[in-house]
């Protein structure tokens, strides 16, 4: 597109105007969060939320790190999120590959069963889910959380990936089969590299939802040492007044890994899309 559609200077100005407008709308709340995270007391946040802090307190970030036990909880969040992404991406690509490209009895039914999971969120089934997890002895374990969160991502992931898989032409695969390649090889070496954008989408969705997930860890984890960041931030929620200046510092720290994940994923988007290969 870029090669084909260069922008004339007038158009460039118009485009910049529109983009800057939205950029402002996005940036202003962030600016608010940022300046309020630098205030020294909750009072300043409440009294004058739009004014600059009386004195810029970087200490809030250090204090948030300490009080919310960020270093410990950060590891937990990371383990849970990376684990969820790994399990979700692996299992969903494998299953979607078979669902989308292999004819077998019950293919349609399985697909619809997965779609049911898209429509009905797992959040609805807390009580029965708790029973399942308890009976599998996975309560109070990070593995349990990873499995539950990956399972909740499966329907959407399978949906996205099936769509992508369906759009691949069958020629490469057929050529490989004639050469004697077995499904594992076709999956791993041939098809997977072709769906990188879909994988990036699924990975991003999984990471962000796992990273910000609050309900599953709350209900299934009992050991404080296993808490992820989302639960750690509770420290700043008082019965009487939420410590907003600390909360914002904590929330901004929390955002960093997801932004990095996004940066990585967006590179994969572009790479996957502009590479060669057979496209329909």
């Amino acid at each position, binding site marked *: *597109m*870029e090669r*084909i*559609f260069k*922008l004339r200077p007038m158009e460039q100005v118009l485009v910049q105007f*529109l*983009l800057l407008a*939205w950029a402002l709308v*996005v940036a*202003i*709340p962030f600016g608010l969060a940022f300046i309020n995270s630098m205030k020294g007391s909750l009072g300043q946040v409440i009294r004058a939320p*739009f004014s600059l802090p009386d004195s810029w307190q970087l200490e809030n970030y250090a204090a948030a790190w300490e009080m919310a036990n960020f270093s410990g909880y950060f590891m937990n969040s990371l383990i849970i999120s990376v684990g969820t992404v790994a*399990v979700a991406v692996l299992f*969903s690509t*494998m*299953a979607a590959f*078979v669902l989308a490209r*292999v004819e077998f009895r019950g293919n349609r039914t399985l697909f619809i069963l997965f*779609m*049911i*999971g*898209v*429509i*009905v*969120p*797992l959040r*609805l*089934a807390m*009580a*029965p*889910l708790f029973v*399942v997890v308890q009976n599998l002895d996975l309560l109070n374990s990070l593995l349990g959380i990873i*499995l539950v969160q*990956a*399972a*909740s991502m*499966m*329907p*959407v992931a399978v*949906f996205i990936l099936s*769509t992508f898989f*369906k759009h691949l032409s069958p020629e490469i695969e057929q050529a490989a089969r004639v050469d*004697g390649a077995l*499904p*594992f090889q076709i999956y791993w070496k041939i098809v997977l590299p072709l769906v990188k*954008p879909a994988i990036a*989408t699924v990975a991003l969705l999984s990471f962000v939802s796992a990273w910000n997930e609050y309900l599953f860890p709350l209900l299934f984890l009992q050991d404080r040492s296993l808490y992820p960041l989302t639960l750690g931030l509770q420290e700043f929620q008082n019965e009487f007044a939420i410590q*907003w200046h600390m*909360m914002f510092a904590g*929330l901004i720290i929390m*955002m960093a890994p*997801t*932004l990095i994940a*996004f*940066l990585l994923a*967006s590179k994969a*988007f*572009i790479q996957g*899309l502009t590479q060669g290969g057979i*496209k329909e």
Partner: protein
Amino acid sequence: MPHAPSPDDYSDDLSAELLRSDVKKTQGLSFRQKEKLQYALLLIPGCLLYGIFNLLPLIGTLVLSFFDWPGIGPATFVGFDNFTKLLTDAYMSDQLWNAFQQTFVFFVICISIFLGLGTTFALLLSWNTAGKSAYKLLFFMPYPLAAVAVAFLGQLIVDVRGPINQLMMHWDLISAPLMFLGEADTALPTIALFQSWQKLGFSIMLILSAILGVRADLLEAAVLDGASRWQCIRHVVFPVLAPAFVLITILTLVDVFNNAEYVLILMGPDAGPYYSTDILGTFQYRTAFGTSGGSGTADLGMAAAIGMVISVLILPATIYLALRNMRNR
């Protein structure tokens, strides 16, 4: 390169015959069988994971909707009572239909912004615009922010003493500050705008990647044929956006009809002002966990029933969209 001896290596017929039968035995399964096995092995883990940790609890919830259960203690079987109460008893069904209408409005606002503004910005970012990468990152930033932060920040901005009101008064557009979150007519759209603000980044990225995936040769052919820029966009790019639009619609549909984080944070489960911000998510939450006082009785059976009804409401649209997507090629 050394390889296992194959029957072809032996010109001697008898030896070849013997070797062939040996080879058959040691190879075990035929190619077809191996293929089937591997397909099965690829399919099973995902199905197991989904089946045990997702589908099974959902079936449990369906069963639960036929019971009356306060979350602890005994559950009493009530058959279809929950459903009949929900659909016919004035107190419940009024809330249900009110919530449904408002959820629909919420959805329309969000999806218009996602598809409308999303496509616009995606297009703008697909050209050789200056500062593309910076814009991309900035536009995505709200997405991973926690809901509680978005709610608080949004509330600050639309506050009676907040920047929007001050600007509008400064420019003499209004004489007294507007109470965005205080009026029944504006509270719901305002909250819908908060949600759109946060989630637009994802739509932009998705649509952008679809645009970038358009085949360059098709575009070149169109240009050579003399098509103008807008004609190219309308006839070559837009058709390819369909899958992205479908995905965004499904995700938004499910999100808006089931979740209600912002309303819960800003208005509590009571969804004031007097139920004008009540959407299906808050209605269900209120039934499941009670009102904001904290001591409410839980009725998880009824909440499960509401969940089932919500799913039935969005099921047709979702299946239709999904199947249409699959059949498109």
